[in-house]
């Protein structure tokens, strides 16, 4: 059971039209904001850079296959103001992230913009949200 829980997975929470699209340097047309999914896995790289911070992580899908997920965040300046730092996570950390997934089903999602930041938990510790 523990193994099952530890096993990375993706859960469709679905149809939560809660996030409001807002402007950073680009829009959100590629994402399905009516859906929120939870991705659980291991951080492989954390880009603390413009125009947006990006989390790269490995997560297994329902078939047990490892997928490399890419998660978009707000810009570093905006995350700083929310209480994040460049040390928010590092390669090897356990991560559970809520994201709005890509419209086309690619393993890409958005977790935060200027107006929202969905829940992200690193090694059991939640990061600041809006």
């Amino acid at each position, binding site marked *: 059971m523990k193994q099952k829980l530890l096993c990375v997975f993706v859960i469709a929470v679905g149809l939560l039209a809660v996030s409001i699209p807002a402007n950073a*340097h*680009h*829009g959100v047309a*590629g994402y399905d904001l009516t859906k929120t999914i939870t991705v659980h896995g291991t951080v492989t790289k954390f880009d603390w850079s413009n125009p*947006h911070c990006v989390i790269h992580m490995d997560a297994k899908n329902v078939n047990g296959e490892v997928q490399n997920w890419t998660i978009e965040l707000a810009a570093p*300046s905006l995350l700083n103001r929310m209480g994040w730092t460049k040390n928010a996570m590092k390669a090897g950390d356990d991560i559970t992230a809520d994201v709005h997934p890509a419209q086309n*089903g*690619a393993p*890409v999602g958005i977790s935060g913009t*200027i107006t929202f930041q969905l829940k992200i938990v690193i090694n059991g510790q939640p990061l600041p949200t809006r």
Partner: protein
Amino acid sequence: MRNRLVRLAITLVMALGSLSILSAQTFAQQGTTKAPQLKTAAQSPDLSGLWAPRPDGIRINTWDSSDPYGQKPELAPMAPWAAAKWKEARPPFGAKQTFEGINDPVQRYCDPPGITRVWMYPWEFTMIQTPQMVYILYEFTRVWRSVAMDREHPKDPDLTWMGDSIGRYEGDTLVIDTIGFNDKTWLDHTGHPHSDALHVVERLRRVDHDTLELAVTVEDPKAYTKPFSGKKYFVSTSSPMEEAICAYSEFDSFQKTVIDPTTKSPGK
């Protein structure tokens, strides 16, 4: 001998003290000669400081108050050539927002956002007022403007990304008048074009101590059949500006890593 050394030391200290007083008086006299300029600055409304977008204005995508969020951008009073050019725009925001084939000059090429559009990004700016010049430093892309307070526009200005800005105070309002643009920027987040005849008037005033109102009027007789205007509000902030820079290599990497995968057909 020892007493002589002590007296010498005291004398030196007194001499240095006198020099300090003299220097202070000299600075004071210099200050006095510049008093008229300082008085001018003091009489102008104080708009200086750090400002951040008020949350209710973050989603403003146009300067047309009848469609601030760009949900009906096709209704802008565009001349036929401007409407045709707008149809080619693939913007990241508003009713036509897309991730596919985006040709937004800022997102794709790190072009300067232009003075009407730079206000739409959700980053801060700093106002610095001097008697001769007002400077506006924008956090987004680290672009800055200067507004000349002591001259008129040149008769035949060079056509530039930021245009030629002159300013004046009308009561509590700073009025900035800008002409002399090239036609390479988008007017707003929805891709509305403009011509080199663009004329922008920006009015900035404090509606209360912590709130700054910006009213923008756009006039472009070549591109639009009538002027239009809109407003946006900013709040005072103590959060320092950071590096929201536009580096083409970073933007291009982000495009390929994040944006492009979302535009491919599933399975490809």
